[in-house]
């Protein structure tokens, strides 16, 4: 009886904890909905998706913010994807054992650097470098933001991609080498394609990290609400959704239209991140169903 009671207590405890974390996500989502949806009712869609963001004058064009986030995130992924996958391949396949022992923890330490520190580094070191070497009017650009974000998403991409490579059975490598392929050919033609879905997941997770990052982005992208449509926009300032929310939430009167619009931006951001994570989950699921690799 007492064992059964204990069993029941432990089981319920775990159930409460597990459900509460899901419950909190749902509550947060409903809170976002409750605070964000009025924006769509109070602000005409033509205004909400226009190109001018001057909230103190009731101009709530969120397009430059959405595009800004997309430009910065894609830049970050464009830089972090080759770098991250190459690092993962090196750590997993090429580096000798002792180097792997040193590199892996060091990469994990990277993830622990506070984003303000990276932002400050970007502002004082990267920005002048970008301005002088690329001839941009200012160093606070989408590209600088992309560089900082790439650095921030690298640890995620490397460790997940490395796990994916690790999951490729040794027999694949042996088979490749036995067929007369060089080590590089084995890596590039056999191991990496076999780990492809894991690598896609790594990139998706890195992307989720990049699009949600706030502090560092706010410090290095310049926060100008211009439409990043021309080719040189990459080397001009942009303003992201996260930076806008962080910079303006302190000011707004609770319940005002501006307040609801900021939550609406949060809602849009939530949906984008949700879709990215869903895509990541879908690739993992496909991988499972194919049944090949763990």
């Amino acid at each position, binding site marked *: 009886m007492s064992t059964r009671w204990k069993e029941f207590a432990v089981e*319920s405890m775990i159930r409460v904890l597990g459900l509460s974390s899901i419950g909190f996500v749902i509550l947060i989502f409903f809170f976002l909905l409750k605070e964000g949806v009025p924006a769509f009712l109070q602000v005409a869609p033509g205004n909400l998706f226009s190109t001018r963001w001057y909230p103190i004058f009731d101009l709530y064009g969120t397009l430059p913010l959405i595009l800004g986030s997309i430009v910065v995130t894609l830049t970050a992924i464009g830089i972090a994807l080759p770098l991250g996958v190459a690092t993962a391949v090196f750590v997993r396949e090429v580096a000798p054992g002792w180097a792997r022992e040193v590199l892996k923890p060091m990469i994990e330490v990277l993830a622990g650097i506070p984003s303000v520190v990276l932002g400050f580094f970007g*502002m*004082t070191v990267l920005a002048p470098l970008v301005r002088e070497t690329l001839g941009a009017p200012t160093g*606070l650009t989408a590209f600088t933001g992309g560089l900082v974000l790439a650095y921030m998403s690298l640890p995620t991409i490397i460790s997940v991609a490395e796990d994916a490579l690790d999951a490729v059975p040794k027999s694949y490598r042996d088979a490749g080498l036995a067929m007369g392929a060089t080590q590089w050919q084995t890596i590039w033609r056999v191991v990496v394609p076999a780990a492809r879905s894991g690598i896609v997941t790594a990139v998706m997770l890195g992307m989720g990290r990049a699009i949600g990052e706030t502090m560092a982005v706010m410090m290095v992208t310049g926060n*100008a609400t211009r439409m990043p449509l021309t080719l040189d926009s990459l080397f001009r300032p942009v303003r992201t959704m996260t930076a806008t929310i962080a*910079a303006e939430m302190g000011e707004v009167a609770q319940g005002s239209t501006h307040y609801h619009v900021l939550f609406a931006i949060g809602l849009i951001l939530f949906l984008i991140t949700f879709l990215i994570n869903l895509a990541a989950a879908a690739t993992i699921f496909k991988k499972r169903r194919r049944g090949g690799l763990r």
Partner: protein
Amino acid sequence: MGKHRIVGNGLRTVGWVLLVLAAGALGLWAGCTLQPPPEGQETAEATYIIENKGSDTLVNLALAWAEAYMQLHPEVRISVTGGGSGTGIAAMINGTVDIANASREMKPEEIAAAEANGIHPVEFTVAMDAIAVVVHPSNPVDRLTLEQISDIYTGRITNWSQVGGEDRPIVLLSRESNSGTYLYFLEHVIRLGGEESDLLFSPDTLLMPSSEGISTEVRQNPNAIGYDGLGYVTPEQKVIAVALGPEGPYVLPSVETVNDGTYPIARALYMYTAGEPSGAIRAYLDWILTEGQALVPELGFVPLAVESSAD
């Protein structure tokens, strides 16, 4: 079978309720034991804690006041934080701070929100401030009219050669829109004080989250133009002389020019309290308005004209 299930469910519900109760009790217990032990020294004498929050322009001055006042009155503890005028006022309305620092007057909707909360904000003018327009030290431009500054910030002038400088693009720096400095600059410089004007900052304007952000970029970038409170201008930035019209006179901001009204971009700084202050808060504000004014020039601001004439 059906009956069993109902019983089972009932038992389960009881279990859940018990569990929730247990969790609540645990929380209560933790709350009790985790409470920090009172620091003996402070409870010995009556301690007043004054929470002071708001304008980033005012934060250094408010800190200097707080430090000086706490030395004179050890029984009073004052904590000062920045965050922007709007942040401070919102905190005052929500009752989390005693004094809100603001570099602008409260907006009508903020006053309405305060009244709705049953709070009548009381305004104190505590110092004067001038907004300095700054550029990189290597920039040959050293004087601009208000209208030129307005044209620069609205994007009608985009190259330094149009105002007598080198052939370089102009990079516009501004404070975030939650800064009182932003609104003041918009209304008095960009719109030249015109009520019906609907000019706005150019979309290319970089909104910097802090004064530090502006000074870092101005120090590094020869293309940049920025503005900020005179108290935040460091020697590495070059201050522009400003005139109302093209015929001059071009005036550099200084304690004298702000006080005699010749520098065109100057404003008052405020502290707001929730209701007419009393006790320790009253005493602190009285001190700020009298002896405290001596600290104001040391931080690059301008003391109140009334006080300076009384000296």
